[in-house]
C-alpha cells in the first residue's frame, strides 16, 4: 500500500507565477454596454467594420444564455463587474524594447520569457500580451524578410486590415457560443500571424499571455493564416498572479490552413488555479478552432493544461479540404478543486480526411477531469479515418475522471475507432522503481511522465521539457 501522505506531499508546489507587477495601468470603468464597446474600439482606433463586428456580437451575446451543460457548477459570473480594457501605461509608440517599462520587462524575465532580442539563442519570436494589450513582439525584422507577419492583432488591424476583414470571424463566428460572442464584442488584443505562400516560418512563434490585475478579464484573439504550402509552429503560454477572486479568460483562436499548409499550435496553460480550498483562480473558457480549408492541409493542436480553476476548452478542426489532417494531443492535469472539461471536435467534411486524438487526463485531490469530444463524419467524407485514445489516471480516491466521447457518422465508407481506459498508478511499478533505489516522488513523476509520453513527443522540444517539469511540480504532494 502506498503511503498516502507521502504521495500527497508530491503534488503540492506553490504557484510560482503568482506575483503581481506593480505597474501603472490604464483601465476603463467596470461594466459592459455598447458605450464600453465603442470606447474600446475608439481607444484602438479601429475601422468601422470592426466596430460593427463588435456591436453585432454584443447584440447576439445579450440574447444568449450562459451554457450549463458541462455541469461545472461555478458561481455565476457578474459580467458587469469586470473591467474589459486594461493596459500598462506607456508611451504612444514603442520602437524598441528599451522603451518598454523596465518593470514589465522584469515581469517577463521572472516568467522566463526571452523578450529581449539579445537572447537570440532560443530562436523563438515572442509576442507578449499583458492584461489587454500586446507589449512587444520580437524578431519582427527577421520574420519580415521571409514575408511572415507576426504582430499584435491591433497592429494588424491598422496595417493589414484587408486580411483581418477577410478572415476574422470566419472560423469562429461571433454567434458561435456564449463566450466567443463575448470575446468578439470586447476583445482587446492578441496575436496575428500570416505566413505567405511557400514559406516555412524560420523560427517558432510564441506568445505569452499574462493577466496582471484581479478585476480585469482577458479577452484576447489570435488569428493565424497559413497560405498555400507554408508551415508554422506556434507556442502559447499563460500565467496569472494569485488573487482570491475568479478572473475570466475568454479567448478565441482561429487558424486557417490553405492547400498543403501546416499549422502546429502548442499551448502550455498554467493560469493560477486557485488555492487548496478552491478560492480564486482563472476561469479559462476558450474557443479554439482551426479550419483545414485547403487540400492536404494539416492542423495539429497540442496542449498541456495544468492551471486554471476551471478549464473549458475544445480545440477543434474543421476538415474541409481533401486529404486534410487534424490532430489533437492533450495532457490535462487537475489537482485540489480544479475542474477541467476539455477535449476536441474533429468534423470531417471533405473526402479522405484523417484525424488523430490522444488525450491523457490525470486527476488528483478533489478535482474533476473530463474528456469531452466529438468526431463527426459528414456525408461527403468518404475514405476518412479517425482514431481516438483517451486515458485517465486517478490519483487518490476523491478525484474523478470522466469520458464523454460523441461519435456520429453519416458516411459508410469511413472508419472511426475510439478507445478509453482508466487506471491508477500501479503499485507494482512503483515498488519496482523504489526497489531500484529511485525515490518515491521521482518514481511517481517518472510514471506520470511515461503516461503522458505520447503527447509530450508532439510538443516542441523546449516546451516538452517545460511540460514535464511542470507536471512533476504540480503533482508534488498529491499522489496517494
Amino acid at each position, binding site marked *: 500500500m502506498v503511503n498516502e501522505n507521502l504521495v500527497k506531499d508530491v503534488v503540492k508546489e506553490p504557484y510560482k507565477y503568482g506575483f503581481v507587477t506593480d505597474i501603472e495601468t490604464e483601465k476603463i470603468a467596470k461594466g459592459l454596454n455598447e458605450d464600453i464597446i465603442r470606447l474600446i474600439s475608439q481607444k484602438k482606433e479601429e475601422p468601422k467594420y470592426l466596430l460593427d463586428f463588435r456591436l453585432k456580437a454584443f447584440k447576439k451575446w445579450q440574447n444568449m444564455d450562459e451554457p450549463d*451543460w458541462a455541469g461545472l457548477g461555478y458561481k455565476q459570473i457578474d459580467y458587469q463587474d469586470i473591467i474589459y480594457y486594461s493596459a500598462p501605461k506607456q508611451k504612444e509608440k514603442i520602437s524598441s524594447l528599451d522603451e518598454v517599462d523596465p518593470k514589465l520587462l522584469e515581469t517577463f524575465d521572472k516568467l522566463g520569457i526571452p523578450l529581449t532580442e539579445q537572447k537570440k539563442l532560443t530562436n523563438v519570436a515572442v509576442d507578449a500580451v499583458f492584461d489587454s494589450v500586446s507589449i512587444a513582439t520580437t524578431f519582427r525584422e527577421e520574420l519580415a524578410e521571409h514575408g511572415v507577419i507576426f504582430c499584435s492583432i491591433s497592429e494588424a488591424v491598422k496595417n493589414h486590415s484587408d486580411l483581418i476583414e477577410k478572415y476574422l470571424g470566419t472560423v469562429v463566428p461571433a454567434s458561435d457560443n456564449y463566450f466567443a460572442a463575448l470575446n468578439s464584442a470586447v476583445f482587446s488584443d492578441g496575436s496575428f500571424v500570416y505566413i505567405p505562400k511557400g514559406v516555412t516560418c524560420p523560427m517558432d512563434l510564441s506568445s505569452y499571455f499574462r493577466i496582471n490585475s484581479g478585476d480585469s478579464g482577458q479577452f484576447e484573439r489570435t488569428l493565424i493564416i497559413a497560405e498555400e504550402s507554408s508551415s508554422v509552429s506556434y507556442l502559447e503560454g499563460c500565467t496569472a498572479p494569485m488573487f482570491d477572486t475568479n478572473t475570466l479568460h475568454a479567448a478565441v483562436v482561429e487558424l486557417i490552413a490553405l492547400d498543403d499548409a501546416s499549422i502546429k499550435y502548442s499551448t502550455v496553460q498554467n493560469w493560477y488555479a486557485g488555492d487548496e480550498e478552491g478560492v480564486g483562480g482563472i476561469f479559462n473558457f476558450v474557443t479554439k478552432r482551426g479550419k483545414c480549408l485547403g487540400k492536404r492541409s494539416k492542423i495539429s493542436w497540442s496542449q498541456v493544461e495544468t492551471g486554471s480553476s476551471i478549464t473549458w476548452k475544445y480545440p477543434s478542426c474543421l476538415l474541409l479540404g481533401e486529404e486534410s489532417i487534424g490532430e489533437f494531443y492533450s495532457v490535462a492535469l487537475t489537482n485540489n478543486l480544479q475542474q477541467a472539461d476539455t477535449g476536441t471536435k474533429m468534423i470531417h467534411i471533405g473526402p479522405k480526411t484523417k484525424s488523430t486524438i490522444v488525450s491523457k487526463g490525470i486527476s488528483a485531490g478533489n478535482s474533476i477531469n473530463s474528456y469531452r469530444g466529438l468526431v463527426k*463524419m459528414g*456525408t461527403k467524407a468518404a475514405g476518412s479515418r479517425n482514431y481516438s485514445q483517451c486515458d*485517465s489516471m*486517478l*490519483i*487518490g*480516491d*476523491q*478525484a*474523478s*475522471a*470522466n*469520458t*464523454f*466521447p*460523441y*461519435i*456520429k*457518422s*453519416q*458516411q*459508410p*465508407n*469511413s*472508419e*472511426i*475507432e*475510439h*478507445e*478509453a*481506459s*482508466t*487506471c*491508477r498508478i500501479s503499485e507494482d511499478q512503483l515498488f519496482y522503481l523504489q526497489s531500484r533505489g529511485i525515490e518515491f516522488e521521482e518514481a511517481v513523476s517518472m510514471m506520470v511522465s511515461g503516461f503522458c509520453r505520447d503527447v509530450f513527443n508532439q510538443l516542441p522540444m523546449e516546451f516538452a521539457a517545460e511540460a514535464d517539469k511542470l507536471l512533476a511540480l504540480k503533482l508534488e504532494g498529491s499522489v496517494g
Partner: protein
Amino acid sequence: MEIIEKIKTNKLFDNQTEIQKICLQKLQSSPLPNPKSELWRLSNKSKFSNFLNYSVNEKNPKFDIPYPESSQNNIRLIIGENCQIKLIKENYSIQQLSEDELNKYIKEQIACFDQNENWSDLLNLSLSSKQNFLALKINGSKIPPIEIFSHASSNSLNVKTLVILLEKNCDIELLQVNLGKENSSLSQSTFFLLEENSSVNHGVVSYGENRSNLLNSLNVIQQQNSEYNLGSLHFKFNYARFEISIKQSAGNAKTNIKGMQVTKKDEQISTYTKIDFNGPNGFLDQINKSLADDKSHAIFEGSIIVPKIAQKTDASQLSRNLLLSNHAQIDTKPQLEIIADDVKCKHGATISQLNEEELFYMRTRGITLPEASKLQLSSYFQEIISFIPVSKDRWDLLDKLLNEN
C-alpha cells in the same frame, strides 16, 4: 398528441389506482420529456409525436402470435391476457404479487425516479391498467424457461408493465417478446429485482411491423452475488427506444449485456444504458451492436457510473457499429464517470462498414458478393443472438434478420 392533453387535464381514467395518481401528478408538471435533455436530444420529434398520437387501448383484443407454438417445457404468459398465475411445484413457485406488495415496491421505485430519465416509466405507470400489469414473485430451482409476451394492436397505444421479484438463490431463463402491429405504439416497462445469489438469463426481442413504435424501459436492481445476463435485439420498429438502467445496489454483482439494434428504411432505434455501481467488486461486460441501412438512424448511449464506494470495479463497454448506406446515420456515445481510483474501466467504439478484405477473400474462394456479405452479417449478428436465451430451432432470429425486409 391526444395522450398529453389527457394527462394535462387529468381526464384519463375514472378509477385511477394509487400508483396512477402518483405518476400522473408527477407528469402533469412536465407532460413531455425535456427536449434539451441529453437523453432525448437525438429522438426524432415527429416519430416521437407519432408514438403519442394514439388513444390508449384498454380492451386487449386477442392477438395471434406470429411466433412458434408454446412448447410443453415452457411457461408462456401474455400480458393483458393471462396475468392470473399461481404455480406452486415441488421445486419452485411462481405467483403473483399481492396488491400491497406491488404498491410498496413500485412506490419505492417511483421515489428514486428522475423526471427526465424515467419519463417512459412515469408514462407507462400512469397509463397501465390492472389487467396489463404482470407482477411475479419467483423462487426455487429448476424453473422451466419463461416466455412473456407484450403486444400492441393497430391504431392504439398499448401499455404493459412487468414486475419480477426473484428471490434468493433462484435461477431463471426468461425471454421477453415485444410485438408491434402496424400503426401501433407499445409502452413496455419492466422492473426486475434480483435478490442475493440469484441469476437470470434475460432475453428481450422486440419486433415491429410497418410504422410501429416502442418505448421499452428496463430497470434492474441487483443485490450482492447476483448475476444478470441480458441479450437484446430490436428491429423493424419505425421508432423504438430501449432504456436500460441497472443498479448493483451493494456491489459484488455481475452484469453481462449484449444488445443489438438493426435499422432499415427510415427507422430510428436507440439504446440508452445506465449502469450504476453502488458497491465494490462490481463487474460489467457490455457490448452493443448497431447496423444502419437505407435512411435509418441508430443511436447508442451508454453511461457507466463508478462512485467512490465502488472500488475494484471492473467494467468494459464496447460499441460496434456497421453503417451500410450513404443516407443512414449512427450516433454513439459511450461514457465513463469515475471517482473510485482502484478500478479497471475501459470503453471502445468503432463505426465502419463490412470488412473489404474478408469480402475479397471469400470472393476469391468462389462465394458471390451477396452471399459473402450475408456470411459476414451472420457472424456479426450471431454473437448477440446466441446470447439470447431461446432455443434456436423454434426461434430462428438469424433467419428473420437476414432474410426479411
